């Protein structure tokens, strides 16, 4: 019974049948802050590196970052659990309506928050209006000296200057998995694929799957008593559920 109560607590944010499609659960108790997700994401998604000066000036392009704070004073000091913050793929995304060019829109098919790079004109309103501050803007054309471009993932657009970008839940992997499943006449199985961050995570703290399937690993994890959403009070209906640490 208690478990069910918790379920309703977590899903209270969502109206009936509105919990989105793909979701992620991140167990902050297990996340070791190792940054494998950060590097994996950058490699998968052609995220450019920006160099020392720009990265120290809030211009790093990370699509996922690990936050941590401090509590208390030495020697009783504690670090708050590492919290990987990425685009929460909000069901009710504040970034979407403010774009005058329809460059950030809600995908009907995947229930994801899409960023359409070639439609973006760079007003940066979406980033301003993102309560999670997970959008990164191409302040420059970032240099990738030859032969580094050999590594670029052909499934992912390389963004030019003046364009906003953000985590896509590795939509290219979602589509690949869906295509494969479709060609085999079946549904995508739970755990069949994962975004780069979840795939790399050595602790398996990041779990990805269908949140509209109550039997999926991610749904089960998200239903747990420790689950919460980031800035839940804003009603953005994030697709990412965090599990409290410690």
């Amino acid at each position, binding site marked *: 019974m208690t478990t069910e109560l918790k379920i309703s607590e977590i899903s209270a944010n969502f109206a009936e049948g509105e919990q989105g499609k793909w979701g992620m659960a991140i167990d902050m108790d297990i996340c070791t802050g190792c940054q494998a997700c950060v590097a994996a994401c950058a490699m998968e998604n052609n995220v450019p590196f920006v160099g020392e000066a*720009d990265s120290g*000036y*809030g*211009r790093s392009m990370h699509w996922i*970052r690990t*936050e941590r*704070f401090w509590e208390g004073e030495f020697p009783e000091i504690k670090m708050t659990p590492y919290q990987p*913050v990425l685009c929460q793929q909000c069901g009710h995304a*504040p970034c979407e*309506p*403010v*774009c*005058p*060019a*329809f460059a950030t829109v809600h995908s009907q098919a995947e229930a994801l928050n899409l960023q359409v790079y070639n*439609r*973006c*004109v*760079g*007003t*940066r*309103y979406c*980033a*301003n*209006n993102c*309560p*999670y*501050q997970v*959008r*990164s*803007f*191409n*302040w*420059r*054309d970032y240099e990738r000296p030859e032969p580094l471009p050999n590594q670029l993932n052909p499934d992912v657009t390389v963004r030019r*200057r*003046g*364009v*906003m970008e953000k985590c896509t839940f590795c939509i290219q992997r979602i589509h690949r998995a869906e295509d494969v499943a479709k060609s085999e006449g079946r549904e995508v199985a739970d755990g069949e694929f994962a975004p780069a961050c979840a795939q790399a995570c050595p602790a398996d703290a990041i779990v990805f799957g269908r949140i509209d399937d109550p039997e999926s690993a991610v749904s089960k994890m998200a239903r747990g008593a420790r689950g919460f959403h980031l*800035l839940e009070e*804003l009603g953005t209906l994030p697709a990412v559920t965090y599990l409290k640490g410690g």
Partner: protein
Amino acid sequence: MASTATHHDHEQDHIAHLREKHLMLDPLPRGRMNEMVMESMHDTSWKFWVVFGILSVIVAVFLFGAWGYMIANGLGVAGVNRPSYWGIFLVNTVFWIGISHAGTFISAILRVFKAEFRRPFTRAAELMTTFGLVQAGFSIFMHMGRVWLSYWLMPIPNQRGLWPNFHSPLSWDLLAITTYLLSSTMYLFLPLIPDLAMARDRTPDGTWQKTFYRVLALGFRGTEGEWTHLRHAMNIFAFAIIPVMFSVHTIVSWDCAAATRPGWNSTIFGPYFVVGALHSGMGAVAMVLAVVQSRMKHMKYFIRGEHFDALGMLMLLVSMTWAYFFFNDYMVQWYGGDKWTQQLLHFHEAGPLGWMWFAMLIFNVAIPWATLWNKKWRSNPWLLFGVGLLINFGMWFERYIIIPISLTINRMPFTWRMYTPGVEIYLGIGTVAFFILLYMGASRLIPLIPVWEVQEGQMAHSLKKYGRETVVTISELE
């Protein structure tokens, strides 16, 4: 008899005094006034060209050069970052739209309310509207990451089959600013037609100026019909442009207020921004008039202490209204107790740029209140210039506090970061220079004084004796 004579002398003095004080009571023949206005355009000293040249260089290098550099290299050469995605670009946009509001206020609202002191400087103020909006447009385009694609924001049919997103306050901005720019330009142009015809008639044949005036005067002759159409149109404009003006700055305020950000999500931002716009706009009008009066020939006749006096009173009134809205916003945000808002308010006052917050209050409230209550002081052009300048700094600071400083604080403290302007400083200076340059250029080509409106006013004003007192009366001519 002696006392009667004294009384008579006294009355004559009084009348002379009134005439000296009030342009409307001090009529000159129309031909003379035309001559004065034409001379004011043609009387150009070498100093003017020196300033004009310097400003042209600044515009070429700071505005277009730096902008080109930024387009080629990306916005990284500016200071914008996460979380201050909007920087001085939008500060300047709001600032220039604010400046532009004064012109409409003076030529539309004062016209509707028949405030006679407006007559000689409606055009000077309207020019500010148009030129200010040009700068605002520049600033907003500079801000865009891919400005070369800015036409994607226009609601025009295109091969992508995609229209702009009308859910976005930025789309509303585009519509509102376009509407405002077009209508204020039209509103500038309509009353200008008779003056252009006047200039046409007084420009020798064979000069390029003649062609310029000929073309722009559209063949205006001053027939009854033309005047009737013009009058009706100006009446419609005077009323209709007021809601447009309010909508523009309200929508600009919604860029902030519609966002889910602490400190921004405020219902009072609309009127607060409109009043703020008038505040800086009035200050700018005072500055422009002080310069025009002192630097342009014959302008001391047209622009007098009474005008600065009236402007000063308006500035004081607007300052009080601004303070009221500011406090209203502050009080509610402060009382609300949201932790991020609290942090933001604290950051405004005690953060590294806390001085700006205090300077804003001093420039926008303390100084106007301390000086403008005094009729004599506020009639002094240069004092009003100074106060206007400070108000403009104060209002610029206000926008700086609302945009980059408030953007520093959000709900993810891990990302808080100060904003340090880069090339946008130069671009901002470039827009100021371009504004002045346009204004200077216009002052050589466009009769800054709407002579026919002044004459119309002078026709309507007369002196009447009520008992022993000679007073001014105004007859309704329209």
